């Protein structure tokens, strides 16, 4: 009833209905209250966001600031956050070290090959599992997780021996294959969830329009899950980009990647914090750029399937 009353009075000039004035005032007050509530909620959310950002970002910021510190500043007791004296010396030392540029190229090669391999294998595998739903498919997807359950060092040493026996020792290809064993299970699982969110009707419609099964996959389904593919690619790329143990066991002169070079700043005789953090900061740039470039797709991919049902 009150709804009717409000609707009626709101559509008429207030001077004709003086009794409507308090009601409008009440409505105004309610709206202001709501606005104030929204504002405070938004403020709280912003504060929480800021806190979360500081918590997540602090280690990286600390690393960044340390890379600009002088040698004695890097080991100050108690430690300081900001450099007392800013210097680029650590960057000069780190980037001037022999093998650093080569290690960057190796890291890029390895990560790109590993990401492509993961996608080429994971997309059809996930599509088959989600669309055909055979018992063997379900066993396969569970079995894919097994490699994630084994400690990497347990498969790293045999894998290194196998690569050496087929003549792939110390090559980016060997390391890429090893990295694919890490990223592939995750990629399959991720792609499965993305394919699940695509209605079958889309494919059936494409089939009615004359598409083959593969044509429907390529022309209809893949474009719909492109955000998911971007997310999967990012995860696969990161898994390879940051991987250390396999790189340590399987690379030497020709294919050593940057994480091993970064670790080399910690020696039995001391730790060169400045150079280590400088190289780590430089090494994080490509990943940050890639993430920014694909940001929209990643967000779209992460919400893909969120409204399924």
């Amino acid at each position: 009833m009150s709804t009717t009353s409000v609707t009626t009075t709101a559509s008429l000039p207030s001077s004709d209905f003086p009794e409507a004035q308090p009601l409008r005032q009440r409505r105004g007050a309610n709206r202001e209250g709501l606005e104030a509530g929204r504002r405070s909620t938004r403020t709280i959310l912003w504060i929480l966001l800021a806190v979360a950002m500081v918590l997540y970002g602090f280690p990286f910021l600390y690393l960044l600031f340390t890379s600009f510190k002088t040698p004695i500043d890097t080991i100050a007791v108690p430690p300081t956050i900001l450099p007392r004296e800013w210097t680029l010396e650590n960057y000069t030392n780190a980037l001037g070290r022999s093998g650093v540029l080569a290690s960057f190229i190796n890291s890029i090669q390895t990560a790109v090959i590993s990401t492509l391999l993961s996608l080429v294998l994971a997309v059809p595998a996930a599509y088959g599992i989600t669309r055909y739903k055979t018992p063997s498919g379900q066993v396969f997807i569970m079995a894919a997780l097994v490699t994630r359950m084994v400690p990497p060092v347990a498969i790293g040493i045999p894998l290194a021996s196998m690569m050496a026996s087929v003549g792939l020792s110390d090559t980016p290809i060997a390391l890429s294959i090893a990295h694919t064993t890490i990223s592939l299970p995750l990629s399959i699982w991720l792609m499965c969830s993305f394919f699940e969110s695509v209605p079958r009707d889309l494919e059936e419609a494409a089939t009615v329009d004359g598409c083959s099964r593969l044509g429907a996959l390529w022309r209809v389904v893949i474009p719909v899950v492109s955000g998911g593919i971007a997310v999967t690619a990012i995860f696969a790329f990161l898994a390879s980009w940051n991987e250390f143990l396999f790189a340590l066991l399987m690379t030497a002169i020709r294919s050593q990647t940057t994480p091993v070079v970064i670790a080399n700043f910690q020696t039995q005789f001391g730790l060169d914090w400045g150079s280590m953090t400088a190289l780590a900061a430089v090494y994080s740039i490509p990943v940050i750029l890639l993430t920014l470039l694909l940001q929209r797709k990643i967000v779209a991919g992460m919400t893909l399937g969120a409204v399924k049902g």
Partner: protein
Amino acid sequence: MSTRNTISKLVTLGGLCTAVALVATGCGAGGPAPSSGGSGGSSSINVLVEAGGHAELTGVAEQCKKDAGIDVNFVELPYDGMFNRLSSEFSSGNVSFDVAALDSVWLPSFKDAVQPMDELFTDDVKKDIFPALVKEANVDGHFIGMPAWTNAEIILYRKDLFEDAKNKADFQAKYGYELAAPKTWKQYQDVSEFFTKDGMYGTDVKGAVETEWLAHVLQAGSPMVLDKDNNVVIDNAAHKEALDFYVSLAKDAPSGAAQVDWAAAQNLFNQGKTAMTRFWAHAYRQIPADAPVAGKVGAAAMIGGSAGVAGVPGPWYLSVPKATKNTDAAKKFVKCAYDYNDKGIESKLGLASRISAFQKYQDQPGYESFKPLIETLNGQATATRPATAKWQQIVDTVLIPLLQKAVAGGDTSALLADAKKQIQDLLK
């Protein structure tokens, strides 16, 4: 669609870049292909080395290229991963290196995977290497590694504080003898106590590393942990005496001793928080120029106990794997490393293994740590760590936990007795 196009372009570009990079770099960007050759071997060899030791061998490699025409490619690895890498390659029988720089504690573990090099250990060579190292390099009757560089703990102290007139007078008045770099346990305790004031500490106590306590065990007159017949002697009187001395310094050291390791102790000293430290000799030359203690540090030989001065050497050995196809070139490099051993002294680490190499530099400015280092390495009680493949396991699972409990106030007798049982179980 535009994003899809971007992704497609990125993927295509990435693929093309990879393909071009792979072709252009011969499947890798790091350098030449791994060495290979027949038994005669090629003139290019790969040397596996811990990252900190790389600079030590750079000068040697240059000289070896001039003298023997051997190109040397270094494979640098972090210390923490090197043992795994060596184990992996030795066990597969397919090695990617022709020479490996091995930490002394690894020699017993890899003795069956490396070649004897007895012919390189002539009488002249043996005379010019510290006795403890000659002994350690010989495993089961064969020399399997040539010492490339060695280290030992010495005393680093704040010369400016020790030479301060007021400190000298106050110390004399309190302890009845002149303030100087300590030579005995008692002096070390006194000096540590004296300088623990005004926010400064006399020394550090390292609970997270074992070597320092083991040096005190040698000073007290006992072999470390195992005797020559591999009997566990960790509960004898010398071990107890050394542990009690070690723990007694905790009151004059920064708190949290259980977690203090080499890096922490070095930081504390370089920051001017401690007046003395027992530390590896290389640290003397690595004090940052902008450190508050730069130019104010003196060096002295390691302190002595009832058995005299003693330290635990920390040498690295060059070994040639049995699986290499470049034995000749590899052994030539090892000989170069001995012949031009002093080249390492001019590197950042600044160490050598030959007595003559240290002596050549000992009187030069900046190398004041060499005389104390030579004295410590020549110490009567100086000895290398027990030659057992289980040593690292003993250190990680028994000795360090034992020290951490001891510096935290544990009963030293009970801890040593317990450690004995644990080590006996490990060695079974």
